[in-house]
Structure formats: C-alpha cells, structure tokens
C-alpha cells in the first residue's frame, strides 16, 4: 500500500536520507525509530508529500506521489490524517472549529452534522465538552488529543504520527499510545509513527523500522528489536551512548 523506493533528501550540504527503502501493508502499524535529528520526521513528511525527495519515489496504492504538484496532491491527501509533534492546531480557531475544519472544507456536511461528528471525535479522544476552548487554553497532552481528533474526524485510511508522545509525562504518553491502538483497531487504519520513545514504540508497533545514517538499518517486530544483538540497535534500544560517536 505504501512503498518507499530509494529515497534521497539533502538540505544544503547535509544529506539526511541516503537511499531509504521499505514497504507498509494496509492496516499495518509501523513505528520508525532513530536518533533525534536523524531524519525520521523528514521521512514521515515525504510519505504525505509535504517534502519532495531529491531522488526516489513514494508510492501510495501504486501511485507515485513524490513529484505531483500541490493541487494534484489534494486528492491523495484525503487518504491521510496526520498528528504533528506540536499538534499544529490552528490557534485562531476554537477546538470545535479545528476538529471540524476538514469537514467544513469538504462542503458536503450540514452545520448540525459537523457538530455531531466533532462531538463524536472529541469523545473518542476522551475530551468531551471542550468544544469552545482555544488551543492556548489546553495542556500539551490535550492539544495532541485534539490534533488526533482532527486527524480522524474524516476517517482517513492512513494516519501518520510525528513523535506522538514526545514532551508528555509517562501517564499522558501511555494514554496517547492507548488511543493510537484503539483508533487502529476501531477503524482498521494503517498507522505510521516516528518516535525515539522505545516504550511507546514497543506498545503501538506491529513492526519497527530503525533509521540509521540515512538508511533503514533494521526491520522487525518489537520482540525482535529488543532481542537484537546488532550493536547500533542494541545501543539505541537500551539508551547506551557511544563515546566515539559525536554526530548521527
């Protein structure tokens, strides 16, 4: 369903992705792990064509989206929902307006229907009754949940999560992980998350990809990665620094 072929991306002299290849099946839950600044979020943004690669291709249902223009991508992006690291809520709008935004833009729903769907989405992320609050009045965890409600309100087929638990305390992080799992099971969506939080990765992933030095270094189940003897994987999973390594 999602195929990444030989993806290369540089910013100036810094080459971030150096030939990334992987394949994700429909309904699968994949977590991409890797060091901070290692290009995980860059890779995730290529999957929804927020960035264009220098070389290589991203295929969604067999269709190469990597070189389409913004207008052609509008159709493709209807399949996607995305939760951003900082939630990226529209700060000039209320929570209800944020969550209802994708429905209002479709112009096929009545005000009443939008309101019902917004209430349902907020209940799903366990935040009922906050429709009239502004994003600035919410905590970090609440903002992520509202971002998640906005990403699922129009029932996308694929949901991308950019560092879903970063900056949250362990209890809130656990509740976000539970939400990700419940949304995947309820709507049978394909989930792709990038994170460096191994606890979270172990909980939400069916398969883990490790990005290292611009390439996929390891692919396997959570059990396999925790038992892996490869020194790079072992050091990352167990949080052991390498004194010889100063840059990723």
């Amino acid at each position: 369903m999602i195929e990444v072929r030989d993806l290369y991306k540089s910013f100036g002299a810094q080459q971030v992705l150096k030939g990334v290849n992987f394949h994700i099946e429909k309904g699968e839950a994949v977590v991409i792990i890797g060091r901070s600044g290692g290009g995980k979020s860059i890779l995730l943004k290529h999957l929804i064509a927020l960035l264009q690669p220098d070389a290589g291709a991203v295929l969604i249902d067999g269709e190469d989206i990597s070189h389409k223009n913004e207008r052609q991508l509008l159709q493709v992006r209807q399949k996607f929902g995305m939760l951003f690291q900082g939630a990226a809520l529209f700060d000039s709008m209320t929570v209800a307006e944020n969550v209802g935004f994708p429905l209002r833009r479709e112009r096929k729903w009545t005000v009443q229907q939008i309101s019902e769907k917004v209430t349902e989405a907020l209940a799903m992320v366990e935040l009922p009754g906050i429709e009239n609050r502004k994003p600035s009045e919410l905590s970090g965890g609440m903002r992520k949940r509202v971002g998640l409600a906005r990403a699922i309100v129009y029932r996308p087929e694929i949901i991308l999560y950019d560092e879903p638990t970063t900056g949250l305390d362990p209890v809130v992080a656990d509740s976000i992980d539970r939400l990700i799992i419940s949304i995947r099971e309820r709507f049978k969506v394909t989930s792709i998350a990038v994170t460096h939080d191994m606890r979270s990765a172990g909980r939400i992933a069916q398969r883990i990809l490790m990005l290292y030095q611009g390439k996929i270094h390891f692919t396997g189940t959570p059990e396999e990665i925790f038992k892996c003897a490869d020194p790079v994987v072992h050091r990352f999973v167990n949080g052991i620094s390498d004194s010889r390594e100063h840059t990723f």
Partner: protein
Amino acid sequence: MNGFALRWIANWLQGLGQLSLLAKEVAGSIFSRKLSGRDLVYQLYFIGVKSQSVVVITGAFTGMVMAAQTFFQFHRVRIDTATLAVVSVSMASELGPVLTGLMVAGRVGASLAAELGTMRVTEQIDALRTLASHPVDYLVVPRFLATIIALPLLTVESIALGIAAAYALCVNFLGIDAAYTWHNMVKYTDVQSVEMGIIKGFIFGAMIALISCYKGMTCGEGAEGVGRATTDAVVFSSITILISNFFLTLVLNRVLWAI
C-alpha cells in the same frame, strides 16, 4: 562582479519567479471559485474596517499640511484661491494612493507576514496541507481579495478626507474665500486624477497582499525568521509602491487622458 553580488541577483530573481508563481496560483484559485465568503468578510473587516483610523489621520493631516504649505507660497503671489485645487489634484492622483498604500503596507503587510509566518513555523500550514486544503485557497486568496477591494476604497476615503480637511483649514483658518476655492478645486480636478488614484490603490493593494503573503509563507525558521519576514514584507511592499508609482503615473497619464 563578485560572488556576493551574483548570489544576491540570483536570489532576487528566484524570489521574483516564486512571487509570479504565487500570483498565477492566486489567479487560478480566484477563477475556480474556491473562496469561502466567511473568510473574505473577516479579512475585509480586518484589512478595511480596522485600517480606518490610520487612513483617516493620514488623509486629513496630509491634506491640511499640503494646504498650509501651498497657501504660504501662493499667498505671496495672490493666488490663494488655487490652494485647494493643488491639494485636490495632489491628493487624488499621488498623495492619497501612495500614503494610503504605505500606511496599509505597514499595518496590514506586517500583520499578514507575521500571521502566515507564525503559521508556517508552528507547522499550521503543513497541517492545512495534510487536511487536503491548498494554503493559497485558504490563506492567500481571501487576504488578496480583501486587500484589492479595501485599498481603492481606503484611497478614496483618504482623498476625500484630505480635501475636506484642507477645505476646512483654507476657509476657517487661512481666510480663503469659500466659493472661489471650491469653484477652482472642482474646475482643476479632473475625473482622470481620481480614476488614477483608484487604479493605483487597486494595484498597490495587489502588491501589498502578494508580497506580504509570499514573505510570510516562505519565512525562515523560528522567531528570527518571522521577524525578518515581517520586516521584509513592509520594506519590499513600501519600496515597490514608491517605484511602481512613478511608472504608473507615466503610463496612466497617457492611458487615461487618451480615452
């Protein structure tokens, strides 16, 4: 020519190209009628209605200063009653549109660039894109249309207030005969001068909106990026207004008086 100058020219040409592409995208979006009426009304309120105080003060005081200076010169040669005519022609064709454009570039241009720039650095523009909304349709087009609608109206308001304030000053404080000064103003102010002011207001509005939205949507990272985009939006809008005003004056004088 050294490397720095070549790089500056290359960057300038690249910016001009991207600005042209943005203008093309905006035109395409307007003709495909993807506009939300609610967004347009909100922007009209913000750009048009909320600019009233700035435009009123600028128009009125420019008109009065112009009248006072003109009177001090004309009084020596006893042509006091031509004062308002000079103010009127200047306000209609040059001062009204240029000063309104500059004031709106400062108030609205800075605000547009800062708003869109902040949306960019907080990933709100990326979020829009993931929600299958084109940022030009949703963010740029309502602001562009509101600016090109509001600026000609604000220009007319500025011209009218400038003349009215100048008239009040001439008649009540400078002792110029009301009937003669009004008669001369009507006699020497052509319709073409007012038309020129309105056309300039329209074009300046388009320039302010395009430059400011472009600067906001392409701003650099962090607070520094937003700050620089805001400054650039005001500086480039103002410079573009001043330079293009010269060429517009030459072209419009030929075109309008030829009709």
